[in-house]
């Protein structure tokens, strides 16, 4: 029975169904319990939250990632699954021991000063939340001062900076400089992304990584985690 719930939960993550009203990737599942209902049911069935996360949510999202890599799934599918997992994590949160087991880390993300383009940033935020990170979205046109303040107060493990324009990407460098000036640079890994930036630019402004997209960001973060071990 418990195994069945976990298996159905995993399948619903793959289908990208957040609630019973979602039709799923196959388009014919409206009315049957989805990830949020199943996460609740799993808790009520005395399944350990760690099992729900590992064997249900994470296992499902890995299949989704594989399907995306095989071009069987597209970004909307990926995001639907990530949103479902993210919602399930909110349900499980009170039942987890503490922050260390709850998430893979804290991630603050912002579109930098002068830039209001946020589609990419929003997608990255959803994907990272779905991948198990605690995400704080600072929004658009965020000044270096504001980011310094968040890094100081919220203490994220990672900071994601996004910019679409060549005219605004310079704000990324200024943000990193501000972190240095405030003695915070070694407290957070800085990842940058956006149409205007590149690997070379990341090196130039001394960011820790350049990410092509949200999926790449997940891989980069996994590598950081491995390096820590």
């Amino acid at each position, binding site marked *: 029975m418990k195994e069945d719930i976990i298996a159905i939960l995993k399948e619903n993550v793959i289908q990208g169904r957040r609630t019973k009203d979602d039709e799923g*990737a*196959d388009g014919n599942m409206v009315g049957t319990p989805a990830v949020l209902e199943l996460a609740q049911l799993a808790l009520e069935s005395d399944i350990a939250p760690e099992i729900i996360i590992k064997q249900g949510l994470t296992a499902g999202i890995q299949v989704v990632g594989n399907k995306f890599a095989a071009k069987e799934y*597209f970004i909307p599918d990926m995001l639907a699954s990530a949103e479902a997992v993210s919602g399930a994590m909110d349900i499980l949160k009170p039942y987890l021991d503490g922050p260390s087991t709850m998430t893979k880390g804290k991630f603050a993300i912002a579109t930098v000063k002068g830039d209001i383009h946020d589609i990419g940033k929003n997608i990255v935020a*959803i994907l990272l939340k779905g991948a198990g990170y605690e995400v704080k979205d600072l929004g658009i046109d965020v000044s270096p001062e504001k980011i310094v303040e968040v890094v100081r107060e919220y203490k994220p493990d990672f900071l994601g900076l996004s910019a679409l324009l060549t005219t605004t990407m310079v704000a990324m460098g200024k943000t990193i400089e501000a972190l240095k000036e405030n003695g915070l640079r070694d407290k957070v890994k800085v990842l940058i992304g956006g149409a205007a930036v590149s690997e070379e630019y990341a090196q130039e402004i001394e960011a820790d990584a350049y990410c092509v997209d949200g999926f790449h960001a997940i891989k980069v973060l996994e590598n950081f985690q491995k390096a820590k071990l």
Partner: protein
Amino acid sequence: MAREGILVHSPYERMTEEQIKQIHHASMQILNDPGIISFNCEAAEIFRANGAEVTPITSADNPCWLVRIPEKLVLQAISSAPKIVKLGARNKDNSLFLNGAEPRVFFVSGSETNIWLDVDFQTYVKKSNPGIETLVPEFHPRRGTVLDLCQAAHLCEHLESLDAFIRPVNIQDEDITEDNKDVNKFFASLNNTTKHVMAGLTSLEQLDNVINMAKLIVGGEEELKENPIISFITCLVKSPLQFIDDSSQTLIEISRRGLPVAIAISPQGGTTAPIKEDGIVAQLNAEVLAGITLSQLVNKGTPVLYGSVPVRARLDNLSDSYGAPESSQYNIDCVQMARSYNLPCYSTAGVCDAKIPGIQSLIERLFSDIVVTLSGPQYLHCAYGLLAGNATFCPLQAVLDDVHFQMIKFFLRPPRISQAEVDVSLTQVKEVMGTPQKLYIRYIRHMLRSGRVSLPYPFEGEGEIDNVLVLAHERMKRLISQPVEHIDSATTSKIFQEIPGILPRLDVYEERRKQ
């Protein structure tokens, strides 16, 4: 069930109603004066018997007659020709209904080329950086064979956008003769596709063998009438305004048997027809109406297609310039003329001057593919895989064309705007404005899964690498590896027993037994 094609909802039209009338009247004048020269005696006699003024031309080397066709005869023929022509298929779900009054387009392969273009890919190493390798296509032309035709039909069976099959390769095997060519080309085609098969005849003497073969496949004469799995193309007019002897006889005999036939006329603007738009269209219209009139005089109700293949002359060597915009203008005008008579139109697009698949080929063919499709011809012979005019067939190019026609079909879907749809959108706007991210991405999914969002171009390469041909080649191999439903074993045996001249190597069951 039948194939749906794509209905063009506001077809593109170049000519006004008044201009269409002017062209019609010009065509009627042409048919009356100077009239048509018929090199076929029986055709001239048929016209004479029905009231046309027919006079022998004594000054010519070959016997011929000047036929002045009165408008009344033409109008009667237009009236008796079916407005809806059914083209059947081995798989009845692949049948086509061509309605002369409805701009619903069906996409068709063709025409007979002599050269089959194989492709393989060689690895090249960058001189300045030997670590970088790239795949470069190499093309290998060779004479087409009957087994190539089998493969072409097999491939076309699996091309999603392709609605009917006109053989794209001429069979030039040593054991193919004028006497057995027709039965072999029809059998090779019919045995490897369940879609409709249309072809020209090489020898009139083979007409009944071909028809009998079709009867064996569908189960008899009545069944063939109900489900005409084959049809014919006749090019009975040599422009300007001359009925060729043998093709005219072919049209007469096909009409007697009541099978569907496309009367295809191909004048060249600047040489065999005026280069002026009004001139070539008026002449072509006269020529095709003369052919339709002959078919209806032979057998009222013969299902005919108004076939227009006009092309402009190249200015450097006077060969056909299919890539010229005027060729598409001429074609679109003819589609309008056919529609004004409510006759189903066989039109042309996609022929190009390029010799190999690539950028030139794509530009030339897509231009006419799009604009001629927009005009709404019912039966669009659109040169799947053809290159170098009508000289070469490359299956790789056919696979590319298939994807492009799928895109054109997608584009031509009508807008789905209704109050119910608008209400859904308004709900989405409200919902999204209440979310932190303010993104509509979650609504893509339903549209995607219900086929309302087009998929990415399937041959897109990674980064800056142009992999279109490599990926199309992989798709081609996959399509060819898919099975095709051959004619069943018992019917195949009957065909080989009763229809003379079919090459034993085309019997797939016998070939399997040998293995």
